């Protein structure tokens, strides 16, 4: 096994569904200064990206949307990243860090995991919120590590995952795709020659759906609370289901991670893995 293959094997054994590699240099073209791997780890040569499963097939079938609001995903791709970081430092003697991916200023993280996944050949942007779709598995969640270890970059995807042939056919017929049709509030787009021609995404509206109960909703409700002069109405806000769930999602972070799956629910990419008994 090559060094690259052993690192990937460590990640897959630790629970990643897919593992890919991008060179640190590849980030320079599309990423502003301050957000590149070399801005985080001096001497960075490679970025290893792990993709982890989202909800189980059973969760996708629930008619109660609250189920997936709470059990969206289990963060195992981060476990795979830690396993690979430990391996790279302990066995291979090179620096390795988990790429910081939590937002630190508003919505903005220090490094884009979506872009890392694209560059590591794990997926391509879709009509649906520009989510990176893996051609085999569809929606996956991504984490990355940055290392000074030179690794072999994974080849880019030969064909984009989106649009799926079924969506191409649908677009020809009725001028839309499943995701664009289910969520026109956040998404719009056009297709040409079976490729995405234009695509827009209203992230701020999506935020009210993908993180209905979380940091943002807490801030919204808190402002309403501090601006409210009437004692009885303040009481109602504080004890409302909305505020209660918002506070709960601060305490149980898993409740706040991903709370809207409607564009992905109707997406055919990777759907075969959701058909069980």
């Amino acid at each position, binding site marked *: 096994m090559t060094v690259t293959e052993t690192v990937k094997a460590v990640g897959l054994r630790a629970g990643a569904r897919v593992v890919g590699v991008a060179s640190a240099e590849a980030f320079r073209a599309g990423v502003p200064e301050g957000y590149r791997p070399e801005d985080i*780890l001096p001497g960075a040569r490679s970025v290893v990206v792990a993709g982890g499963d989202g909800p189980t097939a059973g969760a996708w079938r629930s008619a109660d949307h609250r189920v997936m609001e709470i059990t969206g995903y289990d963060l195992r791709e981060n476990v795979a990243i830690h396993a690979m970081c430990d391996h790279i430092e302990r066995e291979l003697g090179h620096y390795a860090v988990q790429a910081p991916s939590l937002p630190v200023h508003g919505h903005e993280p220090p490094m884009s995991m979506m872009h890392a996944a694209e560059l590591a050949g794990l997926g391509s942007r879709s009509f649906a919120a520009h989510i990176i779709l893996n051609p085999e598995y569809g929606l996956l969640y991504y984490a990355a590590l940055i290392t000074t270890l030179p690794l072999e970059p994974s080849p880019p995807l030969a064909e984009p995952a989106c649009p799926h042939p079924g969506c191409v056919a649908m677009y020809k017929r009725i001028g839309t795709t499943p995701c664009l049709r289910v969520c026109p509030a956040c998404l719009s787009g056009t297709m040409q020659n079976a490729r995405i021609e234009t695509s827009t995404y209203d992230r701020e509206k999506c935020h009210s759906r993908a993180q209905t109960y979380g940091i943002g909703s807490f801030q919204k409700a808190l402002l309403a609370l501090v601006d409210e002069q009437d004692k009885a109405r303040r009481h109602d806000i504080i004890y409302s289901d909305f505020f209660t769930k918002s506070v709960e999602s601060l305490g149980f972070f898993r409740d706040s991670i991903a709370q809207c799956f409607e564009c992905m629910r109707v997406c055919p990419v990777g759907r075969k893995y959701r058909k069980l008994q």
Partner: protein
Amino acid sequence: MTDFAVATKQIKTLALKAGATVVGVADAAAFDVHAPVKHRPADLLPGARTVVVVGGAQPRAGDWVATSPWLLSTMGTTERIQGVGRRVAQAIESELGYYALFVPPGTASGDTPFLSLMLAAELAGLGTRSLAGPVLNRDHGFMYWSAVITTAPLEVDPPDAAPACPAPPCREMWEREGTTPCLRVCPIDAGGCLGGRLEHDRPVRTAYDAGRCNTRVHTHWVGGFQKVLEETLNEPDRERRKMLVYGDFMTRTLWAITYSSTNIAQCFECMRVCPAAHGLKEMR
């Protein structure tokens, strides 16, 4: 009849297999001289005889050389040692048949922990206090700790005879410049947290501003949230209130509270410059 030499070895082997980098055992009674009432092992577990301490989950070599201020403060690894502590507690009870209490890593009230994990690490022979404050292990430097109090009379380890601090470069720097890396990066006389000196090759801490240190280690945490909430409630202008509630500080603080497991510690500057804090292994 339990052979406690064997039992101690068994528990230590389990701890290392579970992911601890180091493990030691302290005598529960040894805490009494140093710890205040209500924060001694027997106050938490009646009949406590020993305390098993595990250290590990420390920042990687890459974390220390990273130039992004966000890395260590948002991708912290301290919680990885908690699971090891829990496993040790469960093993002591299930395999040895003695009571075991995993010391909760949070605070009993305010900023006071249930049991000082730093003191536990020292008494278990796993490290010594540095001039900057954290307990440093001679081989691995700065680490995170977890402790398990037990009624099992395990074999106790002696305190570490050779302190990691001051490291040789620090002694040389003190001779030359009358300061050390940690004192220079965060001097109490210039708005920092630390004051001290080296005396007969030993660190002597003369000042530590815990309140200020808290604003750095827990910048975006409960205290920061309380502060900005108070500012907001006291702000008479509606638009200015919005600036505070939606602002960068409040937003980041709420993220840190939500993702607390990786945002536990948010300032590492005294340890970043410490030659004894990063362990002995060289990286490329």
